[in-house]
């Protein structure tokens, strides 16, 4: 099989599949392609949904009802043109960097002691390793505004819990090499390293979510006092 490849998901949707796996290089191509498709959009587009190594593109049923074969060919030509020119055209743009405050204070209820056991290092070494990394936002999913980020330093890349538990809004979690942030109270299996006071999802804000796929993230530590102050801000 040669990549990237086109797969017809259903009557009005296609999947572009790159070489399977989680790596930033492939994912940057996914986002560059998504950007190209948005810039050169076809009528009837409903979704352009990037994931780790694939891009889902969905249309309404107007095209397929008007002329099934012509329309399919038109879409596939457009997708092929994207793959030929998109990544080269747009990949050079530097990604936005977003800095996110995180409070590691255990009074908020986190899994730092479990991460300490896993890593065989102390609290400060672990939080330093966590904040020293620049994370790539591979995709959003699971909940509105929930980012799948990587790559967590392997020394603190603690795997998912066997059973999910309740996690609070703003919980910053680790699942192997991925990091994520829960936008709302949820059940979750990721080990929680800290909590952010920032809102990950706000339907009234112009960007709707704090993070967008393809961005870069750096975390910085804040104390519990600052955390509560930031939570209280409108």
């Amino acid at each position, binding site marked *: 099989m040669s990549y990237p490849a086109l*797969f*017809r*998901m*259903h*009557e*009005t*949707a296609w*999947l572009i*599949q790159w070489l*399977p*796996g*989680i790596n930033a290089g492939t994912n940057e191509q996914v986002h560059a392609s*998504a950007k190209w498709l948005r810039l050169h959009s076809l009528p009837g587009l*409903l*979704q*352009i*949904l*990037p*994931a*780790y*190594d*694939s891009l*889902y593109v*969905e249309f309404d*049923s107007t095209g*397929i*009802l008007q002329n*099934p074969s012509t329309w*399919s060919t038109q879409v596939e030509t457009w997708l092929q043109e994207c793959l030929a020119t998109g990544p080269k055209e747009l990949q050079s743009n530097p990604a936005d960097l977003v800095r996110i405050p995180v409070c590691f204070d255990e009074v908020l209820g986190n899994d730092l002691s479990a991460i300490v056991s896993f890593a065989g290092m102390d609290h400060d070494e672990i939080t330093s390793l966590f904040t020293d990394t620049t994370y790539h936002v591979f*995709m*959003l*999913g*699971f*909940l*509105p*505004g*929930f980012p*799948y980020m990587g790559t967590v330093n392997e020394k603190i890349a603690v795997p998912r819990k066997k059973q999910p538990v309740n996690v609070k809004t703003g919980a910053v979690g680790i699942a192997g090499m991925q990091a994520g942030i829960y936008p*709302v109270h949820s059940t979750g299996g990721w080990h929680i390293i800290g909590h952010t006071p920032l809102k990950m*999802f706000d*339907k009234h804000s112009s960007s*709707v*979510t704090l993070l*967008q*796929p393809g961005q870069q993230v750096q975390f910085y530590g804040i104390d519990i006092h600052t955390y509560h102050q930031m939570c209280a801000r409108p």
Partner: protein
Amino acid sequence: MSMIVEKAGLLDTIQDGGRHHWAHLGISTNGPMDWYAHELANALVGNRLDAPVVEMHFPASTLRFTKAAIISITGADWEIFINGRSVVFNRTLIVQPNDRLLIGKKYKGERACLAIHGKWKISNDLGSASTDLKSKLGGMGGRKLMAGDQIFFEPHNTVVNPASTNFKWYAEALSASDSIRALPGPEWHWLSEESKSRILSQPFLLKPNSDRMALNWEAPALQCTNADKMVSSAVTFGTIQLLPNGNIVTLMADHQTVGGYPRILQVIRADLPKLAQLSPGSLVHFQLTDMATASAHLAKMKSHLQQVASAVRLQMAFG
């Protein structure tokens, strides 16, 4: 005109054509479980096909209309009373001021759509009135209807000749067979040959823990190779996933945007309404089909809806 919820149903929510354009941010599409019932309900009352409706589960809400209104109820076949008078589903109906709509017995089907002619005065979130119960978006503050809720409509001058409300528009009878047609999913080739043949021959039993997010099925476990290689990727309404325990799950209206399980089949659009109406305990068989067949069936259903919509609009006089 307004519609008042006198008694709340089990799960009645406002749904329109869906919340599109936001899946890349993790925001679900939601929308109706039965897209055909949704569009037919709107066609029968002269609304845009993607207009909001109340999607009802059983037992449904009891509703009262403060003024005369043109309504329809489609999808499930339930006993319907307007002010004690028995009426039929899949028809254009007229209600008079203070008429009460009540659902009686359930004959067949799990979800009904109630359409009301006119412009709904409800808020949209991110471009849609579809209810997202988890994220509290759309409809009635992102929740199901409760007793005391009042939904308002813009005034209009549409009239329908009461004599002509006996429209002979019959919903295209959805095939009664227990066969659900599907296209191969992106990970169809991960199934062992034995499992491929079993998934297309063994019956699947719908489990009671099915809901707007997914249908869960009972059947002998299937097997695939490579499942641990699966990396989260897009899923959609009708995607069938293979779980680690060998069971399959069909994703429905409230599905999440991405999933980490192999996508082995994709139910064709034409058969999604059938899935939406299955009651727990139903048995189905999955049948592999191709894109040409899938598109042809979709086109036939959409064409029927257009015919109903055109004919109803001819019968209506818009002031």
